[in-house]
């Protein structure tokens, strides 16, 4: 019997097979596959889930899985480019999350897509399979180039899925926007990948041969990196890779694609936000945390971007009217928290929030999907209301997800968000210099965002489920099937209890010790190793502070936000945000981020490219054309000496000879 170490690639290859089956059935036998290809997808992701759990258990035994699949380019005495599988505790955890969410999304799709009579289902399931495959291989990638390749595939699949209803204008445009904005970040990532290969000769993530460790040694021994001091070199490379992260994880200022991506099917939003696309960015930071932990500047930038994004997106979530828009902004905000946690040196905290968020955000999106089916594809929360009695399962699971999102004890989001805030304040207080100050600033952003999170979450719950039905569609909402309820229940349970694995204030730290599991194997990816690096290289120090204090403050803020929303929108909701006047105008237009980016494109980039084009057309082409016209003109003139009369030729020859002789004579000094 094969061991999991040998068949680990199958975790990702199974969804690829479902992609191939769905695609082949479209071409060869469209009627053969019932339910539009859902069954192979469900089976494949279920298989992936089983194998992932098996790998999880195997890694839990203290033995990471490493396997080189293919060296597809090798230069002698230099470096080789490989595809390989690496499953350490972080990857194993992420594999289980991704395959579980993908499986549940496939099941949910039966109710959301098939039952609603959508067309193009083969395409839908094929793309879902490819998406899951890409993300699973991204998670398992053992070097940064392979990670980049699958990072791009994930981007491609999200483009395809966001634009699933490509015959309408909005989804097609949203898909294009998502692709272009994330591509913009990926340019920097690609340059960073090349830079890492040039500087270290390897793209490996782990071990003493991996680039994070080589960079650490370079700093310790003071070797130059790409002609820069080692600290600067690490910072530049880290920032370049961070460009890709900011694009994919929708951090400020590249977050604008994500709210538009709501044009895709809700199931796709669940997958993108919880487990695949958006998670890829933060996962990459966690994957190469040993590299980021080397530079205090990088940590400060990550924390500040994260903290700012958390607050920025949360304020926009407050004024949105569509349920999916609120969730979209909450996703941006929550990924901001993860970045804040990682930037503050809280590797465990960031990973923990990544896990919890995957569960509760998938739950919230699927819950929103369930509401949307029940209300005949209504998205506007003002047209809902009073759905609590008609959709009890959806309501209670959605409530669990909301409590987790708002960070109310004891739901999962509370524990991880609190740990992030705790890490940022203790490291902010304890660390000297700029990093400490910036961490405290980021902490302040994050803490303030807790209030807004509580507010918009419960505004959403109250508007959707409470009060009286405000329209006819809300009044005759119909129930939903088992394929909708089952994923909701599974995720609802997880969103409630997942936080219990790492209750830092109560000294329960299973996740922390899980991330230390394979410390003996020398991968240098354990949380313990990262703590040492943070302390020794980046000089991050922790102040002593009781976790209960921050927990109480953040819980208080979350409850205040939630209660405020409840009082304003609980029974007889009015559009209270209209009273904010010009502020509402500003926030409702997303701080004019789209406008300013369009202006950047149309007002700056376009004239600049026009000018460059004119320069090319006039100056560059002008020089080339000028040279050719000179030779054409002189050619036309000079050819006239070729008269066709032999005597003239002879005369010319003789004259030439005489001239030559005279010249030689002068030069030789005969005269």
């Amino acid at each position, binding site marked *: 019997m094969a061991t999991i170490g040998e068949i680990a690639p199958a975790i990702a290859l199974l969804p690829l097979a479902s992609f191939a089956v769905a695609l082949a059935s479209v071409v060869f036998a469209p009627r053969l596959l019932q339910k539009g290809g859902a069954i192979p997808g469900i089976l494949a992701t279920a298989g992936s889930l089983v194998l992932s759990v098996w790998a999880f258990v195997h890694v839990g035994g203290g033995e990471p899985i490493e396997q080189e699949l293919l060296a597809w380019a090798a230069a002698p005495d230099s470096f080789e480019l490989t595809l390989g599988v690496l499953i350490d505790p972080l990857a194993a955890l992420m594999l289980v999350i991704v395959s579980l969410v993908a499986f549940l999304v496939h099941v949910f799709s039966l109710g959301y897509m098939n039952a609603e009579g959508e067309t193009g289902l083969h395409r839908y399931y094929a793309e879902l399979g490819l998406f899951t495959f890409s993300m699973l291989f991204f998670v398992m990638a053992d070097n940064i180039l392979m990670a980049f390749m699958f990072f791009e595939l994930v981007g491609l699949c999200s483009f395809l899925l966001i634009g699933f209803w490509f015959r309408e204008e909005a989804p097609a445009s949203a898909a294009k926007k998502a692709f272009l904005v994330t591509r913009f970040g990926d340019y920097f990532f690609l340059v960073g990948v090349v830079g890492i290969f040039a500087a270290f000769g390897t793209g490996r993530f782990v071990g003493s041969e991996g680039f994070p460790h080589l960079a650490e040694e370079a700093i310790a021994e003071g070797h130059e990196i790409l002609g820069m001091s080692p600290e600067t070199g690490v910072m530049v490379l880290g920032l370049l890779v961070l460009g890709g992260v900011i694009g994919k994880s929708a951090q400020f200022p590249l977050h604008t694609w994500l709210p538009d991506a709501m044009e895709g099917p809700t199931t796709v939003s669940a997958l993108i936000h919880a487990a695949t696309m958006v998670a890829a960015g933060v996962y990459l930071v966690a994957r190469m945390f040993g590299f980021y932990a080397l530079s205090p500047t990088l940590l400060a930038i990550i924390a500040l971007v994260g903290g700012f994004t958390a607050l920025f997106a949360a304020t926009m979530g407050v004024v949105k009217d569509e349920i999916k828009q609120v969730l979209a902004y909450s996703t941006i905000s929550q990924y901001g928290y993860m970045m804040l946690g990682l930037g503050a040196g809280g590797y465990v905290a960031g990973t923990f929030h990544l896990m919890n968020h995957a569960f509760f955000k998938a739950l919230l999106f699927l819950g929103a999907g369930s509401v949307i089916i029940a209300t005949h594809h209504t998205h506007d929360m003002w047209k809902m209301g009073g759905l609590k009695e008609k959709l009890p399962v959806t309501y209670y699971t959605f409530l669990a997800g909301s409590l987790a999102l708002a960070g109310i004890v004891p739901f999962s989001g509370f524990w991880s968000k609190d740990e992030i805030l705790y890490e940022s304040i203790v490291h902010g207080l304890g660390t000297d210099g700029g990093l400490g100050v910036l961490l405290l600033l980021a902490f302040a952003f994050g803490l303030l965002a807790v209030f807004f999170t509580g507010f918009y979450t419960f505004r959403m719950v109250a508007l959707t489920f409470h009060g009286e039905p405000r329209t006819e569609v809300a009044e005759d909402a119909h129930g939903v099937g088992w394929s909708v309820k089952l994923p909701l229940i599974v995720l609802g349970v997880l969103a409630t209890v997942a936080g219990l694995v790492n209750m830092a204030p109560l000294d329960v730290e299973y996740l922390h010790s899980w991330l230390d599991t394979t410390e003996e194997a020398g991968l240098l990816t354990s949380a313990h190793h990262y703590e040492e690096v943070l302390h020794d290289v980046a000089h991050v120090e922790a102040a002593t502070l009781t976790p209960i204090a921050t927990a109480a403050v953040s819980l208080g803020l979350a409850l205040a936000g939630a209660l405020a929303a409840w009082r304003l929108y609980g029974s007889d909701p009015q559009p209270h945000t209209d009273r904010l006047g010009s502020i509402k105008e500003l926030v409702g237009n997303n701080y004019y981020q789209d406008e300013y980016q369009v202006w950047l494109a149309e007002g700056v980039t376009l004239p600049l490219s026009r000018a460059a084009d004119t320069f090319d057309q006039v100056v560059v082409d002008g020089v080339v054309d000028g040279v050719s016209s000179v030779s054409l003109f002189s050619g036309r003139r000079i050819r006239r000496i070729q008269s066709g009369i032999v*005597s003239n030729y002879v005369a010319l020859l*003789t004259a030439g000879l005489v001239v030559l002789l005279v010249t030689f004579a002068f030069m030789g000094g005969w005269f």
Partner: protein
Amino acid sequence: MVPVQWYLLLSAAMFCIGVFGVLTRRNALVILMSVELMLNAANVNLVAFSFQHGNLTGQTFALFTMALAAAEVAIGIGIVLVLYRNFEDIDVGLPTTMRW
């Protein structure tokens, strides 16, 4: 013994006569003969210097030049024949179409 300068003068005179013939005559056969004069002027030069330096290489070269001149005349006569067939004349001023 005749000094080498006389030979050089003779060869220069022959060469100039040849060049003059090539430049002024229109008859292809005469031009061919003028070319022969120029070649033989060179031959005289070669043989004279060979004699002066006591080195036989120059004379060997003169033999080669004669062989070359023979070959050249064969081609030259051939061209003259073609010229005559086309124009009923061997005036080199007649063919003027071989140009741009």
